[in-house]
């Protein structure tokens, strides 16, 4: 059942992706237009779509930083300790 459902979605991948983008757009619109921001902790959060931007940038930042850190010599071959 689970496999069938996943395959069903995969067969319509383009539609699924479009739907997801639709959700993202709606989410930002909701944040910008409807959300009551009086509960925000800081002034920055009052920006429309602040947390969307935060999530996106934070993710890219972490990937770049991790990759850089790995290239500095932290990542190495698997048999490193077996010499």
């Amino acid at each position, binding site marked *: *059942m*689970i*496999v069938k459902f*996943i395959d069903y979605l995969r067969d319509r991948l383009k539609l699924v992706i479009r739907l*997801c983008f639709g*959700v*993202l757009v709606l*989410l*930002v619109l*909701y*944040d910008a237009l409807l*959300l*009551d*921001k009086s*509960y*925000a*902790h*800081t002034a920055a*959060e009052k920006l429309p*779509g602040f*947390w*969307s*931007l*935060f*999530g*996106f940038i*934070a*993710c*890219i*930042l*972490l*990937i770049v*930083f*991790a*990759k850089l*850190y*790995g290239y500095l*010599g*932290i*990542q*190495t*071959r*698997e048999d*490193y*300790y077996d010499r």
Partner: protein
Amino acid sequence: MFTELWLHPALILIVGALILPLVKGVARKPFLMLVPVLAFAAVLLMEQGTYGVFPFLDWNLTFGRVDKLSLVFAYIMTLMCIIGTLFGLHVENDYEYMAAWFYVAGSLGVIFAGDFLVLFLFWEVMAFSSVFLVWFRGRQQSLAAGYRYLLVHTAGGLALLAGIVLQYQATGDLSFNLLDVSNPTLALYLILIGFILNAAAPPFHAWLPDAYSEATVSGAVFMCAFTTKTAVYALARGFAGMEILIALGVMMTLYGVIYATLENDGRRLLSYHVISQVGFMVAGIGIGTELAINGACAHAFAHILYKALLFMGVGSVLYMTGKSKLTELGGLYKKMPLAFLFTLIGGLSISGFPLLSGFVSKSMIIAGGFDDHLYWAAFLMMLASVGTFLSVGLKMTYFIWFGKNNCSQETWDKAADPPMHMNYAMGFTAFLCFFIGVYTPYLYNMLPYAVEYRPYTAYHLAEVIQILLFTALAFFLVVKKLAPKPMISLDVDWFYRMSGSVFKVTADRSMTYVNQWGQETLAEAIPHRLNRFFLEGPARLCLLVVKPIWQLTGVRIDGPDGAEHRFLETFSRSLFTIGSSAIFTVIVLLVLLYSIM
């Protein structure tokens, strides 16, 4: 001295573990389940109070300090013991259960300990029983990893013991309560090192990914729950409000996430997330407000469940296929759909999706940070949450169950959903993750302080959903860059692993040198010289006298038939040669005589 009848749940587990080898046949599996259920029941029936106080030498040892803080930890740990035992029900080796139960008993012992001596006793029980869960994997690497694990924990235990001794010397009090964290002494720092080593705070953390990734499939499920969370309990009890822990915890959350993003081995990746998640709890304890301490306890509770679920999911892949590296897996949703579903629930829980456990627990800690105006800490923890979703919810799940199929034909053929008892264990845990997320009073009513926190507000929901979905967007945009590589990441265990081989080479060389020196000097050169002295010494003394006379009289001295050679030969044959030892004896006797007179 029992204040009233009180049964320590650790005792149930220990007695159960000792009886286990005697239980055979059809009774074995029911017995295996019965013991942890009894321990759980003992915790459920417990009333708050102080029990099990025994006088020992000058002290009163308290085995049963039961309050809200110890109860919430004992509750989740005995519950976890049931889940872990159910998940490992296929294991034939009785000793593996014994090790696991002794290990849980150690945790429970620490949690109910009212003083440092009892705490230390059970603290060591934990280390020395859990190491068997690594060793029973039976691989060469597991053996080595187990020894490293034991070594590090022994060092941490010694720091703790030193701290306890100094603390007792300074205060004359052994009871384990909130320490004076605003005026830290050396004793306090040593105790802190002992605790944070078990909480896997960098730089004392490398034992965790090292050992957990080498443990047995069910052993890792136990290990991920107990050592670090017992340390969280100990910190919450003794170090609440110590500011240095905020920075340490925030650093842990990010450190674990960065390493997890690079990691290729599924269980190592999850291990780094233990560090990251425990970081949230440590930061909460450092913030120290009622909300933050509640958050730390709630997060420990939720974390034990979803992390066990994740270790069970990846463990079942390892159990079925023998592989745990992302570069050797992929596309498995067709073969292991149930394991996928459960792991996904675990992954979404740890990422803090609404309706799941992480959402209602982690946010308490972050809210505690915001409320205390620690914006840097709160925002960095948010950043770490992004990383959590990125590496567990997305990367690991995607590359094991979707992504490029890297399975060998053998791996693919072996892959299938695990045995029923594993599915039950995962299903039950997944249900609890939902239950905690949906029905918040279940968890919130157990917490040490009264909770006024409400996670399901429109603002908080919008905040979390935006962060998570846009993280997912970023992930799928760069997914190719994140494809796993067959590499390892060096961590601080490099220092003791490499210093190990440096030590070996140094020891080897220096010992060979000492050995050689001993052989050449002590065994050969000195006896040879002594021998020559006793044989020829008197003769050479005489030569000193006769040589000038010969030189004066013009006798030929050198050469094979010269005077010197003939003299020495005569001397060695003459009576005098009995000599040197006799002379020696006489001298000694004379000295003795003189000293007696």
